[in-house]
C-alpha cells in the first residue's frame, strides 16, 4: 500500500470551509422568515394529514386522494347537505325508469371538461363500460346488475338492468365520471398487457382532466398540491339543492402535515385555513382560546362495534353475547374515551340516517350503573347454565370479584382475545378494548384485549376467521343501508368477505334479498328495519359508538362552509366559500 499524497491538511481546509458555509447558511436561515409571507392571498390553504396516494381515480382508495379527486371527477347524482337526499349533479334531472325494459334514462347537463371539450354521454357510458370491462375493484360490484349501456343522444344515457334494483340510483350513479379521451388510450394499452387491471391502476395520471370546480395545476410530491379554478365548471352560478354554486376561491393549496399537533399549530399560526382531518377532543380547549379558529363538530356516518365470532365456541352462544352486551357501558366510553364527542350506537345504521335507522332496537340496559349491569349479565348467564367458582354476585346480592367462569357444558371458559387496532391507528378503539376487557373480567370472563397492527388484524378476522371478538369500525358508511346485507348475508361468510362474524340466518338472507329488489323507499324501509331488529337481537355485531367528526378552521380569510354529515370538507363548501374581504 503506498500513500504519497498529502491528505490531512487539505482535509482540514475542506472542513474549515464547510464550517464557514455552515455559518453563512445559518445567517441566511435567520433572514428567512422575512420572505416566507407569500404574495397570493386568494389561495385557500388546507392541511392534509397524509400525502394523497395517487391521482389515478381507480387506485385512489385512501381518504386523502379522494379529497383531491372529489374536486375533479364528478358524479351524476350526489346527496345534498341538509337532507342527504340525492340531487342531480352532472345529471340534469331524476333518472326516468322504464319498467318494460327495466332501464333507467339519465339526461346530462351541458358541461365541459377542463380542457374545453364537451362532457357527453359518451364519457358517462365509457366510464361504466371501463369499470365493467376491467372489473375495477370497489366499483365493479355496483355495476354487476347493469347489462347494457346505450347513448341515445349526446346528453342522454340509458342503462339496462337485469332486474329492478334499489341501489342503482343510490350506489351506482354516485360514482365519478372520467373523460373518454383521457382514458381510452390507457385502456387500449392496458388490454395488450398480461395484467390489464394492474396496468390500468398503475397508470400515472399527471394532471387529470377535470369536470369539477377545480383542476390540478401542480403536485409537488411530499410538499403540496395546487388546484386552480376550473374555468369550464358546469355548475358555476347554478343553483343545485337550493345552494348557489361558485366557486369563488381562485386557488386551493393542500399542504401535508404528518401529525395533527403540528397542523393545529399551523392553523393557530394562520399558515392554513382548514385542517381537513378529524381531530381529537383534546385540542378543543386550546383552540377555543384562539378567536380566529372555529371548531365544527359534524356527525359521521360511521359504525364502531364489537364483533363476535359465531363460528366457534364460546361466542356462538347468544347468552354470552348478550351478557357481554349488558356489561358494556356505552355512556362510560362516550364520556371518557370520546370525551363526550360522539354518539352511542344501538343499531348498525346510525341515528342521523333518520330515514333508514330503526329506532326500536334493543338498547341493552342503557343508563344502568355498573353493579346492576353485572347483576343483569349474571342473570343472563345463570339462566343459560353458566356457573362460577366465585360468582360475581354473592348470596346476599353483593357484587364481588368473580372468577372461574364455567360454560354450560361444565368446561372452564378458555382465555379469549379482544382484537383492536393499535393505539396509534385509533386510540379510541384500543382503549375501549382495554376497558371492555376489565368489564368482562369483572364477570369472570378471561378476556385479553390485544391491539394489533391493522393489516394483521384484518387478515385474522376477515381471511382466517381466527378470533373470538374484535372491535372495528367503518368510518364512512354510505347513506344507502345496503351495506347491512354485505355485513351479515350468509354468502359473504367466506375468506375476505365482509360477513366477519360468520352470521348465518335464512330469515335475514330473505329480508336482505327482498330489500334489494323493492324500489319503493317506504316498503324497503320496513325490510331494512326488520333486518336491524334481527341483528340487534342476535348480536353478531354489538354497535357501541360513533365518534363525532371535529374539524378546525379559520374564518378570517374565507367563510361560507357548508355543514354536512361527514364534515364540512364537502364539495358544496368548496363551491360556496368566499374570501372575506378585508375592511381596509
Amino acid at each position, binding site marked *: 500500500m503506498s500513500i504519497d499524497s498529502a491528505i490531512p491538511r487539505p482535509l482540514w481546509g475542506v472542513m474549515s470551509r464547510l464550517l464557514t458555509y455552515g455559518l453563512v447558511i445559518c445567517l441566511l436561515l435567520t433572514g428567512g422568515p422575512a420572505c416566507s409571507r407569500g404574495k397570493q392571498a386568494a389561495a385557500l390553504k388546507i392541511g392534509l394529514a397524509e400525502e394523497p396516494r395517487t391521482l389515478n381515480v381507480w*387506485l385512489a382508495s385512501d381518504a386523502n386522494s379522494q379529497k383531491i379527486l372529489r374536486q375533479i371527477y364528478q358524479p351524476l347524482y350526489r346527496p345534498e347537505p341538509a337532507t342527504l337526499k340525492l340531487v342531480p349533479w352532472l345529471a340534469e334531472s331524476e333518472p326516468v325508469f322504464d319498467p318494460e325494459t327495466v332501464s333507467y334514462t339519465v339526461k346530462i347537463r351541458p358541461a365541459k371538461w377542463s380542457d374545453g371539450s364537451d362532457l357527453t354521454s359518451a364519457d358517462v357510458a365509457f366510464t361504466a363500460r371501463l369499470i365493467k370491462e376491467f372489473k375495477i375493484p370497489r366499483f365493479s360490484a355496483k355495476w354487476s346488475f347493469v347489462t347494457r349501456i346505450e347513448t341515445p343522444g349526446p346528453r342522454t344515457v340509458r342503462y339496462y338492468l337485469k332486474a329492478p334494483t334499489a341501489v342503482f340510483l343510490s350506489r351506482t350513479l354516485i360514482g365519478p365520471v372520467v373523460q373518454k379521451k383521457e382514458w381510452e388510450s390507457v385502456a387500449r394499452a392496458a388490454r395488450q398487457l398480461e395484467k390489464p387491471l394492474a396496468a390500468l391502476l398503475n397508470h400515472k395520471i399527471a394532471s387529470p382532466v377535470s369536470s369539477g370546480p377545480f383542476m390540478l395545476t401542480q403536485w409537488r410530491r411530499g410538499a403540496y398540491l395546487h388546484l386552480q379554478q376550473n374555468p369550464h365548471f358546469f355548475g358555476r352560478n347554478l343553483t343545485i339543492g337550493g345552494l348557489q354554486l361558485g366557486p369563488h376561491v381562485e386557488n386551493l393549496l393542500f399542504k401535508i402535515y404528518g401529525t395533527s399537533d*403540528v397542523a393545529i399549530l399551523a392553523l393557530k399560526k394562520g399558515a392554513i385555513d382548514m385542517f381537513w382531518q378529524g381531530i381529537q377532543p383534546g385540542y378543543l380547549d386550546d383552540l377555543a382560546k384562539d378567536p380566529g379558529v372555529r371548531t365544527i363538530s359534524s356527525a359521521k356516518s360511521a359504525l364502531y362495534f364489537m364483533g363476535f365470532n359465531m363460528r366457534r365456541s364460546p361466542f356462538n352462544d347468544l347468552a354470552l353475547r348478550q351478557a357481554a352486551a349488558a356489561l358494556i357501558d356505552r355512556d362510560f366510553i362516550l364520556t371518557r374515551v370520546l370525551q363526550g364527542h360522539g354518539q352511542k350506537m344501538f343499531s348498525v345504521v346510525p341515528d342521523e340516517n333518520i330515514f333508514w335507522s330503526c329506532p326500536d332496537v334493543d338498547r341493552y340496559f342503557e343508563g344502568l350503573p355498573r353493579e346492576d349491569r353485572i347483576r343483569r349479565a349474571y342473570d343472563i348467564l345463570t339462566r343459560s347454565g353458566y356457573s362460577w367458582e366465585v360468582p360475581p354476585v354473592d348470596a346476599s346480592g353483593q357484587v364481588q370479584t368473580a372468577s372461574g367462569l364455567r360454560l354450560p357444558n361444565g368446561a372452564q371458559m378458555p382465555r379469549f382475545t379482544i382484537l383492536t387496532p393499535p393505539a396509534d391507528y385509533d386510540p379510541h378503539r384500543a382503549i375501549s378494548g382495554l376497558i371492555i376487557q376489565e368489564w368482562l373480567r369483572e364477570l369472570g370472563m378471561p378476556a385479553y384485549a390485544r391491539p394489533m397492527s391493522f393489516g394483521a388484524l384484518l387478515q385474522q378476522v376477515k381471511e382466517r376467521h381466527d378470533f373470538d371478538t374484535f372491535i372495528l369500525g367503518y368510518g364512512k358508511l354510505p347513506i344507502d343501508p345496503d351495506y347491512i346485507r354485505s355485513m351479515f348475508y350468509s354468502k359473504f361468510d367466506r*375468506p375476505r368477505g365482509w360477513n366477519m362474524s360468520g352470521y348465518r340466518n335464512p330469515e335475514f338472507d330473505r329480508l336482505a334479498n327482498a330489500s334489494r329488489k323493492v324500489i319503493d323507499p317506504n316498503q324497503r324501509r320496513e325490510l331494512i328495519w326488520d333486518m336491524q331488529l334481527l341483528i340487534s337481537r342476535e348480536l353478531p355485531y354489538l354497535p357501541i359508538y360513533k365518534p363525532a367528526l371535529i374539524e378546525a378552521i379559520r374564518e378570517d380569510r374565507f367563510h361560507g362552509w357548508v355543514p354536512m354529515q361527514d364534515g364540512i370538507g364537502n364539495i358544496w363548501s368548496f363551491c360556496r366559500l368566499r374570501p372575506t374581504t378585508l375592511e381596509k
Partner: protein
Amino acid sequence: MELNKYILRRLIEITVIFFVILTVLFLLFRLAPGDPVSRMVDPSMTAEDARRLIEQLGLDQPLGTQYIIYLKSFFSGDLGISFHYGVPVLDIIGERLPNTILLFTTSVILAALTGIFFGKIASWHKGKKIDSWLTIGALICHTLFLPWLALIIIWFFGYRIGWFPLNGILSPEIWTDPANGFFIRMLDVLHHMALPLMTLFIIHFGSYLLVMRSSMLETLKEDYIITARAKGLEEKVIRNHHAAPNAALPVVTSVALSLAFSINGGALTETVFSWPGIGRELVFAVSNNDYPLALASFLLIAIVVLLANLLVDILYAWLDPRIRY
C-alpha cells in the same frame, strides 16, 4: 496492493450480506400476516375484488416464484411498482432521496465539525469547569429523547417565537408564485430545514463531542505531542496542529459506524417534521404493507450503511498510515 485486495474482499462480503438481507426481508414481508388489499376497509370492496387485486399484484404466485421474479427484475434495475402509490419504486426513491441526503449529511457534517471543535476545547481543559460543563452538556444532548425534543423544538421555535416553519420542506405559497426565482426557493427550503437540522444536530453533536474528547485525551498522551511540546511550540499550535488532526480520525469512524443508529434518528425526525425523505417513506410503506417500496428503501439504507463502513475503513487507512491491511 494489499489495500486493493482488502477492498475486493470487503466488496464481496458486502454483496453477500446484501443479498442475505434482501432474502430475509423479502421472506419476512411476504410471510407476515396482512396484505395491501386486506387493509381496505370499504364495504364496496368485495371478496372477488380482493382476489383479483391480489392476482394483479402477483401475490397469488408461490413464494419461490415471487422471489425469482423479484430477483430477475432487481438485476434488470427494476425494483417493482409501489403497491400504495402505483408508480415505480425507483421514482419515489428518486424523489425522496435527495431530501434525506440534504438534511442528513448537513446535520452530520455540522454536528461533527462542532463536536470536534468543542471536544477539543473540553479535552484541552480537562478537569476544569469548562470541561465539566461541556461533557455534561454533551451527555444530556446525547441522551435526549428525540421525538420529544423534536416536538418541543417545533413548539418553541416554530410556534412560540415563530422564527421557522413548523414542518415540511417548502412553502407552497413561495413555490407556486412564478415570480420567485431559484435563490428564493432554495432559501425557503433552507428555512424549512432549520428545525429538523437543529434536532438532528443536537442529538449528534453530543456524541461527537464525547468521542472527540476521549480521543483527544488519548492523543495528548502520544509521544509526538511531548515532542511538539519539547520543541517549544505554542500550546495553541500543539492543540490545533498536532493533536486535533490525529484525534479527529476516530470521530470520522464513529460517524460511519454509528450511521445505522443515526438513521433511526433520521427516520424519527423525518416523521415528526413531515420531511419527505426515505426514512419517513419507509415507516409509511411498512405500515401500508407496501412491500416493494419498504423493501427497496430498507435495502437502500442497508447498502448505504455497508458502503459507508467500507469507505471509512479505506479512508482511515489512507489518513492514518499506521493502519495497514
